[in-house]
């Protein structure tokens, strides 16, 4: 074990590891590209669905089961299936990652909407806000913390799963995992896993900053108080 760690450290210490077309920096950009693009697309699809379900209260059953369904969908199978249809391009990766992220975001958005105080929603309607105004002025701001929890969870999963891009010859940190596996070079696998974990944690931290920034001040104060 100690030997492996020493090897991993040597792997990281290798100066040529970091630059060039196969360097860590290039792989980082690739990994970010797969992960972020997928997450953004997933948000664009999932957020409206979650908001709609939460706002109308219809399809909650669908939302809850979608989560189960999404978790059960084997990513490797999806990648391969799309690959067999689309051929050698990035579609398999994006489809699999988007499909992975959507359920998490939908259910968390729905949960966020469902958690909006019934009285507040009632008062908003009773005060004369129309459906869209209730959604965008009241429900959405109040659901932001939970929606962002969903996005964070999705990003962590997507970053870890973007490893699969390397299986069908593309880049990202997954390259180190698959190459290391094929070459029986565990230090490389370990290095790749560490890079992926660090990236996931870093993105999660960045998003928690965004979450704080997006959370309305009144709500943040309230939460801080009720946590005390």
């Amino acid at each position, binding site marked *: 074990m100690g030997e492996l760690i020493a090897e991993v450290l040597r792997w990281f210490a290798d100066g040529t590891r970091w630059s060039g077309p196969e360097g860590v920096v290039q792989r980082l950009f690739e990994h970010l590209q797969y992960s972020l693009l997928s997450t953004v697309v997933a948000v664009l699809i999932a957020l409206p669905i979650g908001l709609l379900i939460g706002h109308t209260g219809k399809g909650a059953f669908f939302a809850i089961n979608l989560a189960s369904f999404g978790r059960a969908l084997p990513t490797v199978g999806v990648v391969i299936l799309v690959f067999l249809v689309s051929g050698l391009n990035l579609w398999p990766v994006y489809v699999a990652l988007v499909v992975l992220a959507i359920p998490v975001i939908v259910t968390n958005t729905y949960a966020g909407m469902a958690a909006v*105080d019934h*009285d*507040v929603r*009632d*008062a*908003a*309607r*009773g*005060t*004369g*806000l*129309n459906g869209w*105004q209730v959604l965008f002025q*009241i429900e959405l*701001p*109040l659901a932001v913390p939970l929606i962002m929890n969903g996005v964070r969870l999705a990003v962590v999963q997507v970053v870890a799963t973007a490893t699969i891009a390397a299986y069908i010859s593309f880049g990202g940190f997954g390259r180190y995992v698959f190459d290391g596996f094929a070459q029986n070079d565990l230090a490389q696998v370990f290095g790749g896993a560490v890079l992926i974990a660090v990236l996931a944690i870093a993105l999660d931290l960045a998003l928690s900053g965004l979450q704080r920034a997006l959370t*309305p*001040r*009144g*709500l943040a*104060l*309230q939460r801080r*108080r009720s946590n005390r």
Partner: protein
Amino acid sequence: MISFEAVNKKFADGTTAVRELDMEIPEGQLTVLVGSSGCGKTTTLRMINRMIDATSGKVRVDGRDVRDVNASTLRRNIGYVIQQSGLFPHRTIGDNIATVPRLLGWDRKRVRDRVVELLDTVGLARDLAGKYPHQLSGGQQQRVGVARALAADPPILLMDEPFGAVDPVVRTLLQDELLRLQDELHKTIVFVTHDIDEAVKLGDRIAIFKTGGHLVQFSTPAELLTHPADDFVADFLGAERGLKLLSLTSLADVPIEPVTTVTESTSVAEARRAGDGWILAVTDNGRPRGWVHVDHLPADGVLADAEPIVAAGLTANASLLAALDATVSSPVGLAVRVDEDGCVAGVSSPQQINERAARFRAEVLVP
């Protein structure tokens, strides 16, 4: 004026919340809908601003069927206050109050001025405008709820158990405030509660609902207390119907007897000379302080040292019930009367109060 014509409301799960309701809610008055839970009172209220649409029948506001008006437009012209205030937690107090004016497209300055005006109206400090709802007490939040409902000066105010979640002391305070506001504003207020005492205290008219959505009686509080329509209403009003009746009339017509008062800074020796038995101690500016027995005075010092038995002063607006209560808790069996400034004007005896009660009973019973 709000009217219900043969209104029924059946929910999807099969329960009937309101059955064949015919009711006319008079303009400029405070009408209370009261009943136990599940009697349809809240449903009735929510049909007025179309939070719920009736299954059949017509709900009219100023003669117009509410179904003919866009729901949001309708609601912007009807103030709405609910339990727990329903304030938007992510918006400041000022923004909360400004909700409807902004929806109506008022300019910025007008909105700002209105917010300040309303904070004054409901008795809140102006600097609360920048705070968030959770930074306020329950009572304050409820006042903000009222201010928000009043923001665009709607002729109608719907209040759904607005004081249900605050403690009794604050509730009494808020009820008094509401009565004071109504004295000034003369809105058409529809107020839902399950508390019959609150209904009697606030309502110009009271509608009693029975489980299953029946309106059982719709009349003035006095008529309700003296002529309950049936056993259900009588039961609902409770055992102390007579006493509740006393809360409906004031001390105004009860004569005031003079009383000897001694200021609390008077020395004990001097106070002894003022009389024997119980004497009424007052503050230096004439407000009632309490009853003191000369035998219980300390050896020396001033009257205040004797720790008087507190006696609250009653204005002419105070109810006979409150006066009777004061006589019972007073060591001398007298209610202390004060003028508008709160200065002691004299006392009234239980006999005098009872005489007035008897006359009142006769007045309301006769028709």
